[in-house]
């Protein structure tokens, strides 16, 4: 059942939301630059987690290396900050050792799709239960602005000064093709919609991949002549995307250059841990 981004969330959180119940004491301010969307994404996630009723002890958040991968350090869960690209592999070990944990992977476009591409597709193939958040800001932020596997063609990075010629990956298409059973795209700009996508992803059994368009004003913005974080959010996240439900009604020319937003794909398929524990029962004695 593809489509339907307008998910009903059975709650109306009292505002303002008390983030401090999830943020580790003394860890703010975070290291992210002014205008970086990662904080918006994190806040959306925390609200969704709260709505889902998961306790902090039930959650494990694993990350690799990069700006987004600093997320676990701030949140009061079981947290693991690992090697560049390898978060999903570590998360696989944690999940199989403690299948009752809800495992989140905080990763970036470079971390998940370049150095960690192999682990990414194999997690999708196994359909192991974890929520993979790809903070996609089109650039390597931590290492100061090199091109990533999602940098659009023609854009500038510190390693593509003459305009990037590599075609980018479409995170969602790749996740779907590799076998992920929940594939969605959200943006930091549409933070409430993102919260709902997270909420749905948390309740999904299997590999959930969310491509989160998010901005890096410090490098991507500056190198590509976007004056402010807000301008980037409007150009890339607001005007660059169309809700999947609306897209069906739009003529092709209106969709050109736009990315679909919302839950793009959802399927039911046996989940890896459940299958393994069935196997244990089968051969146990």
């Amino acid at each position, binding site marked *: 059942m593809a489509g339907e981004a307008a998910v009903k969330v059975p709650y109306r959180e009292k505002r*303002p939301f008390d983030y401090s119940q999830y943020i580790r004491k003394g860890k703010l*301010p975070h290291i*992210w630059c002014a205008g970086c969307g990662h*904080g918006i994404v994190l806040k959306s996630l925390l609200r969704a987690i709260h709505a889902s009723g998961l306790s902090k002890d039930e959650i494990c958040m694993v990350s690799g290396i990069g700006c987004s991968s600093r997320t676990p350090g701030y949140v009061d869960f079981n947290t693991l900050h690992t090697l560049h690209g390898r978060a999903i592999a570590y998360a696989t070990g944690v999940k199989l050792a403690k299948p009752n944990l809800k495992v989140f992977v905080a990763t970036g476009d470079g971390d998940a799709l370049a150095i960690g591409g192999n682990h990414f597709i194999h997690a999708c193939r196994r359909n192991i239960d974890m929520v993979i958040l790809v903070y996609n800001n089109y650039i390597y932020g931590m290492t100061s602005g090199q091109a990533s596997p999602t940098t659009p063609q023609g854009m500038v990075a510190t390693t593509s000064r003459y305009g990037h010629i590599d075609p980018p990956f479409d995170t969602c298409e790749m996740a779907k093709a590799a076998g992920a059973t929940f594939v969605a795209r959200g943006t*930091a700009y549409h933070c409430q919609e993102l919260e709902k996508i997270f909420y749905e992803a948390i309740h999904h059994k299997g590999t959930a991949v969310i491509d989160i368009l998010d901005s890096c004003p410090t490098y991507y913005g500056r190198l590509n002549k976007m004056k402010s*974080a*807000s301008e980037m*959010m409007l150009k890339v996240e607001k005007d660059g995307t169309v809700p999947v439900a609306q897209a069906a009604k739009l003529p092709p020319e209106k969709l050109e250059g736009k990315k679909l937003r919302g839950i793009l794909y959802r399927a039911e398929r046996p989940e890896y841990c459940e299958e393994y524990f069935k196997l244990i029962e089968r051969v146990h004695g």
Partner: protein
Amino acid sequence: MNEKETVKEVATKPPREKKKWNIVIYEELCKGCSICVDFCPTDVLTMKGDVVAVKALERCTGCQLCDLRCPDFAIQVFPE
């Protein structure tokens, strides 16, 4: 949902005395990105040097968008 819908939602609530809001800014957390200022639907906020400041609290509708889009946990809107 976008900010316009939120505004509408607030606006269509049964007529009653206009609710008042307090905006709390945690200056030590604000990095001055101005996202909250740029996206405030009723132009409540402004930049004062490197941090955000309230310029017209009376216009605040309590939509919370400044909080929701603040990457730095630096602004919150409380009902009075």
